[in-house]
């Protein structure tokens, strides 16, 4: 399977981008101590001084910001936090969803309606708003500096966002599980004496495998979404340094993760450097596209592997589950066609 995965160009591009960014970032952190190059001014040919910002390719490959800091170093610095943070949020919420969703799918009798209805408030209030209100006291630096360590803040943020992203995914898994468990061969297998574990291992998992891969990638994309919303709301992943007093500048991120750079540079949009905010944005898009591409390639390989029929294939990453988040499957079996 790995061999065939290696032949998928989409997978290679996506995987390559993530690995290169991650490796570059780690090397930058370990061997160069996250050094950010700084050009306060330059001399042009006529002996005049020109100040930053410099456009991309003019002096530095991705340009500099208003203070002359080279963007490419910030991008490298932030890559590890972005990529590892997103993956840990995705993995946490996926693991929780799996652990909750499978048992929920097995005993789906309508007893869990109370919890389900209470949780459906999550549906009307976007996850990023809840995360913002919950994490703001922790992540905004008070006047006396952070009393918490960076690791604690990162861990809490991963935990909170991971839990917030869990319910839709858990309900998705539960719906899929109970839909499969309604099939005839399951009844046959049950009457032959199969226990839940056997059903899970030999009937459920082979069918769910493809969807689970998609779901995992979808959780990662959702994590990017929430982090990027928080970044725009100036609540940066890992903490926001706030300056106090007169002449205080804009809030500055601690980790320079890509979404926080979007938030940091957004206010420069209405100055002469409107392209500045676009650079971290491009990297965010590339990251999401890498995730989507990997997911597509994985699904393709898995579909070739298994005997899952064509009609059961999903059309795309987002359109898969998002649509039936919190859709409750009616006990009578009058389900909707997805």
């Amino acid at each position, binding site marked *: 399977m790995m061999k065939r995965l290696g032949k998928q160009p989409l997978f290679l591009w996506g995987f390559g981008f993530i690995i290169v960014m991650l490796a570059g970032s780690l090397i930058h952190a370990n061997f160069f101590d996250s050094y950010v190059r700084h050009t306060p001014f330059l001399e042009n040919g006529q002996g005049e001084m020109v100040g930053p910002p410099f456009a991309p390719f003019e002096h530095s490959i991705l340009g500099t910001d208003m203070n002359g800091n080279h963007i490419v170093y910030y991008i490298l610095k932030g890559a590890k936090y972005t990529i590892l943070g997103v993956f840990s949020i995705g993995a946490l919420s996926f693991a929780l969803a799996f652990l909750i969703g499978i048992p929920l799918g097995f005993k789906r009798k309508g007893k869990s*309606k*109370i919890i389900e*209805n*209470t*949780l*459906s*408030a999550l*549906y*009307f*209030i*976007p*996850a*990023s*708003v809840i995360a913002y*209100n*919950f994490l*703001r*006291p*922790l992540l905004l630096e*008070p006047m006396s500096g*952070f*009393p*918490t360590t960076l690791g604690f803040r990162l861990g*809490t943020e991963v935990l909170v966002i991971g839990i917030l992203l869990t319910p839709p995914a858990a309900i998705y898994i539960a719906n899929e599980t109970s839909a499969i468990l309604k099939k005839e061969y399951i009844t046959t297998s049950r009457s032959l004496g199969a226990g839940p574990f056997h059903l899970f291992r030999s009937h459920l998992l082979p069918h769910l495998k493809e969807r689970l891969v998609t779901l995992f990638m979808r959780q990662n*994309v959702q994590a990017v*979404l929430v982090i*990027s*919303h928080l*970044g*725009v*709301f100036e609540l940066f992943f890992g903490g926001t340094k706030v300056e106090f007093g007169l002449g205080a500048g804009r809030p500055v991120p601690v980790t320079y993760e890509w*979404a926080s750079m*979007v938030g940091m540079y*957004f206010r420069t*949009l*209405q100055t*002469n450097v*409107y392209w500045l*905010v*676009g650079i971290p*944005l491009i990297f*965010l*898009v590339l990251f*999401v*596209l890498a*995730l*989507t591409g990997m997911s597509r390639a994985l699904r393709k390989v898995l579909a070739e592997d298994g005997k899952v029929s064509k009609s059961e294939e999903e*059309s*795309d990453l*987002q*359109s898969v589950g*998002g*649509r039936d*988040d919190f*859709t*409750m499957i*009616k006990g009578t079996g*009058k389900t*909707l*066609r997805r």
Partner: protein
Amino acid sequence: MAWKSYLLHECMKPFFLILGVFLISISPLFISVEGFVWPGLEQIGGILGQLTNPEALVYINPGSGEERSLFPIIFKAFASSLTVLGIALVVSFSLALLGTLLLWRAPKRLYQLCLSFTSILQSIPDIVFVVASQMFLVWLYVETGSTYIKIAGAGEEEAVLAPALILSILPTIYFFQSMLSLVEEEKEKPYYEMAVSKGLPKTFILLTHILRNMLVRLSYQAKFLISIMVSNLLIVEYLFENFGMTSFLLTYSQPPVFFVTALLFFGPVYLFLKIFELALYFFTRQEVSL
């Protein structure tokens, strides 16, 4: 008596929803700058006490510490948010419908290309669209020196059209993608073949049969589409600095204010979905849980 238990169930739902919203609005009490804390029951009780007297609720500006009463200014924010949301909904729906009609007789390859292109676009975070279109507007201003469209404003002069148009980008993509794939699925069905073999013009089949069936199936996704739009609306309002519901959900979000705002905003959305559900039931006799 299935309908009785159904009715009971439907009446209970909003209460749990309100409970959920309440839990979310008090959640910030459980965290402080040093980590997780237990606020104590008195504090939660205090918030409940404040909520029994909504007339006296105030919101506090975190910058200046000034207190102002929440009502009736919240209705102004409410109106601003709903205007932007409404325009965006109408624009995106009509654009997607127009696109689908135009693509109806397009070659298969072009159709497939559009389908896969939109499904790639779907996974891109919404801030990318918002920020990129703002960049485009600024670039337009820098290049041509004229503002075709207002990109920021304050008070009475709030920008409405630009946020609404930008907000409609992502829903358009979603609508378009679902419509295209649903139309394609409808084409596979026997009634389409039957109609073609009877010699009915294809445009006629599209307008009278396929479109109707497609719209019914599209409405199953109403909840999902609305939730996408709401979360995108918050970003748009924040970045345009409009005085909408976002101000109360993010900037002035003390727990009671958050609770009232959330109910005021998401209540109508919930009602809208419920009415939609009932209408669907009456027209198509299909039970949907939106």
